[in-house]
């Protein structure tokens, strides 16, 4: 699928890269070097239909549950496993951009959709949910640390759950 007709969105989608560049300039910071992919991504064509698939979830909103160590804000590359049966009210957040979490801290499902996924699994839209979902703190300024530290940890964690499909929800 490649959308032919794009909806007329109101408001216009926010230019976060431009916004960041402008605010950094006003604050006297060096410009942030955003990642611009130079090549097309891999694309798996042979995949299970959603209704037959085991779905995994990765949130980068810094979600954790009571009893777990919260994330820190200095390029934290650690990971938390959160049971897919966790009640939404037990989910907390720690993230460098906590201004975006004011409402999520009262209603975690705005960024960590456990209830919607549970509903869709019971309805048969999703085959099954992985036993554990995963969370990390996606505000990692160093791409090298994403590659060298976060990705190997995620590989090990996500492989253990053997999902057929992986949903990713950023903050």
């Amino acid at each position: 699928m490649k959308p032919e007709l794009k909806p007329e969105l109101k408001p216009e989608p926010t230019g976060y890269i431009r916004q960041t560049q402008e605010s950094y300039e006003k604050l006297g910071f060096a410009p942030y070097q955003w990642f611009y992919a130079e090549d097309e991504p891999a694309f798996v064509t042979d995949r299970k239909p959603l209704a037959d698939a085991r779905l995994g979830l990765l949130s980068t909103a810094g979600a954790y549950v009571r009893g777990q160590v919260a994330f820190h804000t200095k390029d934290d590359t650690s990971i938390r496993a959160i049971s897919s049966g966790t009640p939404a009210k037990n989910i907390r957040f720690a993230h460098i951009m906590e201004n975006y979490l004011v409402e999520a801290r009262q209603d975690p499902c705005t960024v960590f959709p456990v209830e919607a996924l549970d509903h869709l699994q019971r309805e048969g839209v999703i085959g099954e949910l992985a036993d554990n979902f995963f969370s990390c703190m996606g505000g990692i300024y160093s791409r090298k640390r994403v590659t060298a530290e976060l990705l190997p940890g995620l590989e090990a964690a996500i492989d253990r759950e053997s999902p057929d499909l992986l949903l990713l929800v950023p903050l």
Partner: protein
Amino acid sequence: MCHQTVSLIARHFEARGLPTLILGSALDILSAGKPPRAKFVNYPLGFEAGRFRDRDDQLAVVREALQGFDDFSEPGIDLMAFEWLSGWAMVKEREKGKLDHRSPRTPEPQYQSEEDRRAAGSA
């Protein structure tokens, strides 16, 4: 930043053979990161999975996003048609005049509450 990180993660896992789909709200960062599959919802950051305390909207957003697993036949970003003008107004008012929204960068865990800190044994 999170949208950049998930783009890197999605590209990595797709290359290892696991189909991925991002449900995100920063179209320009996703476009730059070229993930295999993404569904864009034009809500403020912090509401990627739907409106605050609105289970019907959250379910509709997640349902439509997940459909992308079955529908995409090539890499791309699909723009969903959800609108939430009052949500944008709420966030705009809150962020008015602020240039830097980041919390201080510290290696100390940032618990949501003191009770959480105690429960984790870090008091």
